[in-house]
């Protein structure tokens, strides 16, 4: 399926012979229309994802998911063959606009699938709004993408940064945890996660005693853990991800806080970090729109097929990619492959109902999933699903005005 751009240097003889053949064919009126039709028949799908650096594995998981969803339905979009283009965005926000423009202008993609990093997404967002190219966001949770900067041609199949933490409120209050301390990295994603937590927790009747922050990506938490111990809240809620998340859980346990003050967090706290955190993560509670262990036939079938095709276990990012593929299929089928019929295409995608491994979800008015958020607890190095923390939770989409 992959088309590799032919970069063989042309020898003089090759140019001459092919040139002659072309002229001959063209004069007989056979070749040129053929070329035009062949190009017009293929849909160009561009991946703008991180393939190097910290997020490289997320990029691979997302691409796998997209390809799998489309391959399951015959490998075509609305009856048309696909030409794939890949671009490594390196999670580098400084090159976000440049890279997105390259895909849109030089490669002329019909669809841009990307990306993981919110800062890079802001670049894609700008290009998508200006060029009108169809953009499907398979991860980046930056609020603006489906709020103030939303666009008819931009769809997200993942989450907003406030969605998982918004669901923390109810399960915490159900346990009688009325006073909480919030702690996060002080950067955009942390602030947006706090916005969700604050809304969900205070609405459920809880009080946030103190808001603590560490500069990103600083991982020296000891001073703040001492502060937490002297504040003695009923619970701690947090947003951390990756290596910092593993370190935070370890430090939290080593400071003796784990058994005295329960730790809650956005689900990214315990995604991909459980092996590193070891026993320190046991019992940590988190909320997310997916869990590997989700016990549904749909999820099990997905996991088996993914493991068979790619020889590795899928994660939440693979699911988000898979749904991006499903969404694109659904749209392309609705317009029978005529992606230029934008009104009908966006209408079909905007009213999509996706049967995802994470459970069924629908697209909100601002083009972000309305989805169940699960409550999970770490048991034996696995996120065990305890139930649904918030049913069909939608992001507010505040400030979104579709043109």
């Amino acid at each position, binding site marked *: 399926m992959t088309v590799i751009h032919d970069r063989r240097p042309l020898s003089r003889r090759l140019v001459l012979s092919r040139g002659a053949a072309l002229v001959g064919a063209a004069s007989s009126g056979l070749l040129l229309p053929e070329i035009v039709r062949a190009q017009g028949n293929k849909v160009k799908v561009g991946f703008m994802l991180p393939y190097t650096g910290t997020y490289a594995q997320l990029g691979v998981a997302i691409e796998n998911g997209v390809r799998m969803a489309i391959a399951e339905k015959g490998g075509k979009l609305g009856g048309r063959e696909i030409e794939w283009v890949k671009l490594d965005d390196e999670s580098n926000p400084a090159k976000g606009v440049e890279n997105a423009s390259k895909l849109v202008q030089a490669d002329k993609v019909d669809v841009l699938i990307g990306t993981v990093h919110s800062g890079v997404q802001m670049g894609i967002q700008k290009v998508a709004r200006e060029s009108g190219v169809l953009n499907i966001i398979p991860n980046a949770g930056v609020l603006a993408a489906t709020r103030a900067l939303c666009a008819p041609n931009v769809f997200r199949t993942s989450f907003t940064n406030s969605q998982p933490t918004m669901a923390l409120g109810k399960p915490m209050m159900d346990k009688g945890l009325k006073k909480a301390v919030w702690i996060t990295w002080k950067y955009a994603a942390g602030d947006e996660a706090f916005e969700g937590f604050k809304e969900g927790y205070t609405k459920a009747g809880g009080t946030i005693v103190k808001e603590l922050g560490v500069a990103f990506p*600083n991982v020296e938490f000891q001073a703040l853990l*001492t502060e937490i111990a002297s504040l003695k809240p009923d619970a701690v809620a947090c947003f951390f991800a990756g290596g910092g998340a593993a370190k935070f859980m370890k430090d939290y346990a080593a400071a003796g806080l784990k058994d005295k003050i329960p730790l809650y967090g956005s689900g990214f706290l315990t995604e991909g970090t459980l092996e*590193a955190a070891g026993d320190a993560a046991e019992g940590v509670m988190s909320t997310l729109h997916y869990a590997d262990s989700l016990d549904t036939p749909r999820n099990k079938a997905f996991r088996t097929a993914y493991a068979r095709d790619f020889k590795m276990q899928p994660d939440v990012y693979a699911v988000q990619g898979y749904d991006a593929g499903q969404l694109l299929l659904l749209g392309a089928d609705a317009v029978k492959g005529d992606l230029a019929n934008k009104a009908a295409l966006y209408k079909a995608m905007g009213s999509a109902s996706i049967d995802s491994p994470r459970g069924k979800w629908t697209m909100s008015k601002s083009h972000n999933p309305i989805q169940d958020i699960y409550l999970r607890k770490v048991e034996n190095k696995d996120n065990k699903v305890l139930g649904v923390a918030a049913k069909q939770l939608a992001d507010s989409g505040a400030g979104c005005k579709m043109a």
Partner: protein
Amino acid sequence: MNIADFLIQTLNSVQYGLLLFMLAAGLTLIFGIMGVVNLAHGSFYMLGAYLAYSLSSMLGSFTLAILAGVVLSVLFGLVLERVLFRFFYQRDHLDQVLMTFGLIYIFEELRSILWGDDVHGVPIPPLLTGSIPLTDTLSYPIYRLFMAGLCVLLAIGLYLLISQTRLGMKIRAGAFNRDMTESLGINIKLIHAVVFAIGVALASVAGMIAAPISSVYPNMGAPVLIMCFVVVVIGGIGSVRGALIAALLVGFVDTFGKVLLPQVSAMLVYMLMAVVLLWKPEGLFKQ
């Protein structure tokens, strides 16, 4: 803040400061003696952490892993000095910055090829796992105290090596006047190779002993490198004593800043650096 909290935060400050010192000591040594600006210093820290991860599972013992890791780091430092850094002592700082900046990317890529991009944990050795209860809610991990102790030992060892031994005398002489030292029949090339290897080993050891509490993950050297430079600049470039004082100062400002002035805490360390530079443009202790 009551007195108990104050004392615990002081302990946090000292412990963080000592770890910073161990990291910055190698950097300031290499800069002070050979005049090389080494941006790849954070990569040596990362290398140490990944060595601890691999070796401790391979050898089954954290102590053995550290010993083997030190040997490997010293060898690595010697090789790197011989094939690369040796040719940069006399060159412009900008050349050194470019070369070592490139090394960061090479080491990150090698790390990705050899170990992958996952986050890994290194178990704390069983002897040091416990915690000492300080208040009814807070305990202090024994391992952190062990780290602080080890950093103090290394600081003393480094001081004795440089000020009391014959090798230390040659090192100081070489830093003071390279040509004169060489003409007195001292093998300055060997001295430089040794100092460079010590610098690499110091960063690597810091990474190894930090690994159990910090986890092991890609790009872990980057934030460390920045703090190292802050410490080295405040302390005075090339001064080991200055690095110690500066590291403790940064530890205090960072810890208490987070608690007392949370809104500006991210800036405080850099403000400290600015103030010190205004007052003493060459740092607290100029060599």
